[in-house]
């Protein structure tokens, strides 16, 4: 049943890069420790909310090619983010909704069809130790997450027991859907109005960076008028873009200063880099712009070769969008609580 105390998921195939992530390791950047965390925080948060977890629980982040997972015991899961065409037994595993997986089932993820990163949440969360107050895997320092590394074949992922909300959700789900032998789910999913539309030509809204005015007028105009191509060297640390070159009006030595998720910095070669979840804590390159929070998932889901365009917005708009998103996730939480009654 739902609380055996020692539940686990076995990794049959690990996928390309599957790691345990949460919302990040906060409070440690002053020590030079990166924040890390989920690349697409929206998909991560929603997956947790759908199984009755706190948003800060750990999820599995899969990349481009997903894992194959054997569920020794039954569990309530939700898969959000990119579409890896997951299956459970012979059935399709639906996205963006809670799914009760029966004991002895295998969930297979394929290659991402739209977007590149998927998030799997389990009611109760993954039972991995917190390091510096976070479950996130810090690959370079080999700490956090599952043994400080990406998942491998035969790993056993221990699960925590679902809490009261998760247990209520499970009961409701199992009584409402008895159609499948493999799983039980709901006929509804998170509204399309809320889910970002993943695209190979996304438009990202930005605020001016701290050194925006130091770039030539020509480079500033070019930044907003041409597409930038996502290069293969892009990873969890940063998205390397081709385009430009973007030039400073006068060459300037700059001291290292803090950077943020979404900071667009421009090294000497003039091609911009958008800093992502595993960014270093500080950087010494001039900052052209900052991607607004609500548009970061679009970039985290952009595949190599995507054409990125940038559009300038102001602080009020950026922060209103961000607060609206947080309130929408709160609303989703209330909806789940009401459904589980």
């Amino acid at each position, binding site marked *: 049943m739902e609380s055996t105390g020692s539940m686990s998921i076995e990794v049959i195939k690990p996928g390309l890069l599957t790691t345990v992530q949460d919302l990040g390791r906060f409070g440690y950047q002053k*020590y*030079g420790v990166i924040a890390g965390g989920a690349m697409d925080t929206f998909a991560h948060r929603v997956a947790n909310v759908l199984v009755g977890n706190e948003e800060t629980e750990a999820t599995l982040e899969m990349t481009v090619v997903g894992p194959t997972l054997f569920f020794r015991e039954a569990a309530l899961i939700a898969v959000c983010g990119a579409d890896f065409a997951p299956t459970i037994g012979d059935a399709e595993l639906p996205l963006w909704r809670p799914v009760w997986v029966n004991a002895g089932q295998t969930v297979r993820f394929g290659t991402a069809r739209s977007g590149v990163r998927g998030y799997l949440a389990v009611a109760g969360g993954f039972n991995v130790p917190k390091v510096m107050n976070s479950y996130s895997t810090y690959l370079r*320092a080999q700490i956090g997450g599952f043994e400080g590394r990406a998942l491998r074949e035969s790993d056993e992922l221990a699960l925590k027991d679902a809490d009261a909300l998760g247990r209520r959700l499970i009961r409701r789900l199992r009584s409402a859907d008895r159609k499948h032998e493999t799983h039980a789910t709901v006929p509804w999913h998170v509204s399309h109005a809320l889910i970002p539309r993943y695209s190979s030509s996304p438009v990202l809204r930005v*605020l*001016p960076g701290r050194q925006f005015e130091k770039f030539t007028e020509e480079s500033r105009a070019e930044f907003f008028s041409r597409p930038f191509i996502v290069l293969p060297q892009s990873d969890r640390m940063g998205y390397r873009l081709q385009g430009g070159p973007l030039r400073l009006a006068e060459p300037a030595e700059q001291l290292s*200063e*803090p950077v*943020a998720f979404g900071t667009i910095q421009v090294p000497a070669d003039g091609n911009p880099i958008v800093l992502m979840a595993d960014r270093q*804590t500080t950087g010494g390159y001039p900052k052209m712009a900052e991607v607004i929070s609500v548009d970061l998932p679009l970039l985290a889901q952009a595949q190599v070769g995507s054409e990125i365009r940038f559009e300038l917005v102001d602080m009020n708009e950026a922060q209103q969008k*961000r607060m609206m998103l947080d309130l929408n996730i709160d609303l989703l939480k209330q909806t789940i609580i009401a459904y589980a009654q």
Partner: protein
Amino acid sequence: MDGKGGSHLAGYAVSPLGDAAVTVELGSGVDPETHRLVTLFSAYLEDHPPAGMIEYVPAYTSVTIHYDPLQVYKSVLTQSEEGTESDWLALSPYEIMQRRIRDMFDQLQSHEETTPKLVEIPVCYGGEFGPDLEEVAAHNQLTVEEVIRIHCSRDYLVYMLGFAPGFPYLGGMDKRIATPRKKTPRLTIPRGSVGIAGEQTGIYPIETPGGWQLIGRTPVSLFLPDRHPPTLLQAGNRIRFYPISREEYDRWSRRDP
């Protein structure tokens, strides 16, 4: 559009770093006075974190505050501030942070300063641990012994941590041992390596690629993920290197793996 979006308030400048962080600049160069203000402001934030702050990150000339916009906005409803509530509710979270930072600077002058902590770092110079020690000596027309003596003769100020967990950006190296970076960076530099790059000296807390001239290695761990704080050094510390023999290094490593 105002690119910097900054406002100058009595000797410091506040500007946004995206929609969830704000950078407070306290000076323009690497100097002890600017560093003193950075340390003072950081200590204030540690003791009086503003509502909605996620964390603060000190750097050479600035302190950046990462915040949660919704929590900052909501906090206005629960905290009594100067001015009417409706006045504050019309502000964006960024504007609320700006006002709070201004108020903090009014309090800052009276905040107590602490004496910087001195941390002594043992280094086994040369040999397999310092493959570039002779190059550094030759470049500066010094003997190896002179390089070691000069490297150990001063205290260094930890201006900030960054680049890697626990990596100190140190100020105060003697220019007589300054040496350009290696032309071809090494793919791996072992943890604990002590190096020189230009006019900077530093210690690698974890294994990483890099182009520094390696002059020695310390057996002391700079990054301790299971302890709090997780680093041996903190911004504002002073450090002093002292030479140890290979035997002492090995003994130390056995004691403190």
